[in-house]
C-alpha cells in the first residue's frame, strides 16, 4: 500500500463523511421550511414529524434498507470495517452514512405535503415502510444496479440519475402524492365553487432560513455524489458540481420570482423559495456535465415550472401546503429529462423508463401502504382537532405558548 493511496483513501473517506453531514443538515432545512409554511397551531407537530422521521429513516435503513439496496446482510452485519481489501476507495461505513441521509431526505419531502391534518403516528408508520422497503427497492434498481424484478436493467437502457432527482426527490414526491390523494385537503383550502383559499404560513423568516439551509446542504447532496475528491479529475468534477448546484438554485429563484411577479403582480416570497429548491432539484440528476450557463438555465426552467405546477395542483384540488410535490416531483422529472442534453451516456428513452419505473413503484406501493394505514388506524385527525391545531391534539403542547391567548 503506497502512501499516496493511503492519503487518497483517507481524503475520499473524509470528504464523503463531511458531505454526508451536510446532507444530514438538510433535515434541519426541511424542518424550518415546513414549520414556516404551516400555521402556528401546527408547528410542534410538524417539527416532531421531522425529527422522528429522520431517526426512523436512519434506523430502518440500518436494519434492512441498505441491505435491500446494495446487498449484504441485515443489521449492517455485511459492512466491512476496511474497504481496502475489496478495492473500495473509501471506508464502507462512510458509504452507509452517506446513503442513509439520502433516505431521510426522501422521507422529509413527504411530511410537508401531508402537514396540518395527518395523524402523527400514521405518518411515522408509513415512514417505517417507506424507508425500510419502498425506497430501498427502487434504489436497488438504480444506484444498486439490480434488474427490475428480473425484467430489465435501467443502467443498460441509458438511465442516469447522478444525485437523485428521480431516485430521491421524485420518489419522495410520489409517496407524498399518494398520501395527499387518500388524505384530502385541509379544511377550508378549497371553497364550494372551486375557489382556492390562501392559508398563509405562520413564519416566513423560518421558511427562508430553511431554504438557505437546504441550499447549503445540497452542496453535500450533489457534491458528495461525485463519490471522490482525491485526484485532479475528481476534484475538478466536485468543483464543477458545486458551481452548477449554486448556479441552478440561483436561476430557479430568479425564474420563480419573475413568474410570480408577472402572474400575481407581487413578489411572492414563498414561490421564490420554492423556485430555489426547484432549481436545485432540476440540476441534481446531472450537476457535473452542464456548463455554468446551462445549469443556470436548467435551474430557471425548474423555477418557472414549479410556480405553474403549484397552481395546477391547486386547480386539481390536491392540497400541498409547502409545494413539495411540485418542487420534488414535477421538477424532479424535469431534472431527469434534462440529463441527456449534456450527458451522452444517457438517453431520453432510458430516462423516461427510469422515471416511470420509479413513479409507478413508489406511487403504487405507497398508495397501498397509506390505504392499509387508513383502514387500520386512520390517516386524518378529527375535524375538531384540525380546527384546534394538531399541536395540541397530537403533541399536547403549543410551539409558542406565550403568544396565544389560550393560557390566559
Amino acid at each position: 500500500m503506497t502512501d499516496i493511496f493511503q492519503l487518497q483513501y483517507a481524503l475520499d473517506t473524509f470528504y464523503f463523511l463531511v458531505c454526508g453531514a451536510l446532507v444530514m443538515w438538510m433535515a434541519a432545512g426541511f424542518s424550518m421550511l415546513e414549520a414556516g409554511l404551516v400555521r402556528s397551531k401546527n408547528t410542534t407537530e410538524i417539527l416532531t414529524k421531522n425529527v422522528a422521521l429522520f431517526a426512523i429513516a436512519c434506523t430502518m435503513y440500518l436494519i434492512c434498507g441498505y441491505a435491500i439496496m446494495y446487498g449484504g446482510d441485515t443489521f449492517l452485519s455485511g459492512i466491512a470495517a476496511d474497504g481496502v481489501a475489496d478495492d473500495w476507495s473509501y471506508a464502507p461505513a462512510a458509504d452507509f452514512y452517506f446513503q442513509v441521509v439520502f433516505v431521510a431526505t426522501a422521507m422529509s419531502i413527504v411530511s410537508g405535503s401531508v402537514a396540518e391534518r395527518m395523524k402523527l403516528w400514521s405518518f411515522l408508520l408509513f415512514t417505517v415502510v417507506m424507508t425500510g422497503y419502498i425506497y430501498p427497492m427502487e434504489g436497488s434498481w438504480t444506484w444498486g444496479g439490480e434488474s427490475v424484478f428480473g425484467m430489465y436493467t435501467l443502467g443498460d437502457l441509458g438511465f442516469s440519475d447522478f444525485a437523485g432527482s428521480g431516485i430521491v426527490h421524485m420518489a419522495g414526491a410520489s409517496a407524498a402524492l399518494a398520501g395527499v390523494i387518500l388524505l384530502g385537503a385541509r379544511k377550508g383550502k378549497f371553497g364550494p365553487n372551486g375557489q382556492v383559499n390562501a392559508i398563509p404560513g405562520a413564519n416566513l423568516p423560518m421558511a427562508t432560513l430553511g431554504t438557505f439551509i437546504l441550499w447549503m446542504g445540497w452542496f453535500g447532496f450533489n457534491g458528495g455524489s461525485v463519490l471522490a475528491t482525491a485526484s485532479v479529475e475528481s476534484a475538478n468534477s466536485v468543483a464543477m458540481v458545486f458551481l452548477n448546484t449554486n448556479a441552478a438554485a440561483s436561476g430557479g429563484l430568479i425564474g420563480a420570482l419573475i413568474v410570480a411577479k408577472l402572474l400575481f403582480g407581487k413578489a411572492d416570497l414563498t414561490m421564490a423559495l420554492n423556485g430555489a429548491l426547484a432549481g436545485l432539484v432540476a440540476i441534481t440528476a446531472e450537476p457535473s456535465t452542464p456548463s455554468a450557463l446551462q445549469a443556470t438555465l436548467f435551474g430557471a426552467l425548474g423555477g418557472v415550472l414549479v410556480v405553474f405546477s403549484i397552481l395546477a395542483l391547486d386547480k386539481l384540488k390536491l392540497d400541498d401546503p409547502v409545494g413539495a410535490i411540485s418542487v420534488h416531483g414535477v421538477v424532479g422529472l424535469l431534472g431527469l429529462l434534462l440529463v441527456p442534453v449534456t450527458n451522452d451516456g444517457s438517453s431520453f428513452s432510458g430516462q423516461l423508463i427510469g422515471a416511470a419505473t420509479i413513479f409507478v413503484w413508489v406511487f403504487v406501493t405507497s398508495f397501498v401502504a397509506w390505504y392499509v394505514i387508513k383502514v387500520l388506524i386512520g390517516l386524518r385527525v378529527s375535524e375538531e382537532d384540525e380546527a384546534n391545531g394538531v399541536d395540541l391534539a397530537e403533541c399536547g403542547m403549543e410551539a409558542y405558548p406565550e403568544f396565544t391567548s389560550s393560557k390566559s
Partner: protein
Amino acid sequence: MKMVTAIIKPFKLDEVRESLGELGVTGVTVTEVKGFGRQKGHTELYRGAEYVVDFLPKVKVEVALADELVERAVEAITVAAQTGKIGDGKIFITNTEQVIRIRTGETGAEAI
C-alpha cells in the same frame, strides 16, 4: 367628567400621546384593537390565492378628563392623528359617573 375614546392609526400613537401630554393629561390607556369602518379591509396574496383581511389593526386610546379639558383634548387628538386619508379613525365621548383612585380612595376630578 368625560371618557374620551379615540380609535387612531397605530403609527400616530406617539404624536397623540405627546400632544395630550402637553395639555397636562396625566394618564391614558392604550389598547391594540382590530376593526373596520369605511376603510373596510383589504386583500392580500399568498401563493397566487387572494385572501381578505376584514379587520384592520388600530389603536384605541382611552382618556378620562375633567369637563373643561375635553374640547382641547379632542382638538389635540384630531390634529395629531389626522392624515387626511381614509381610516384616520374616530373619537367617542361618553359621560363618566365617577372616578376613584385605588391607592388613596380619592374620588371625582381629584382622582383623574
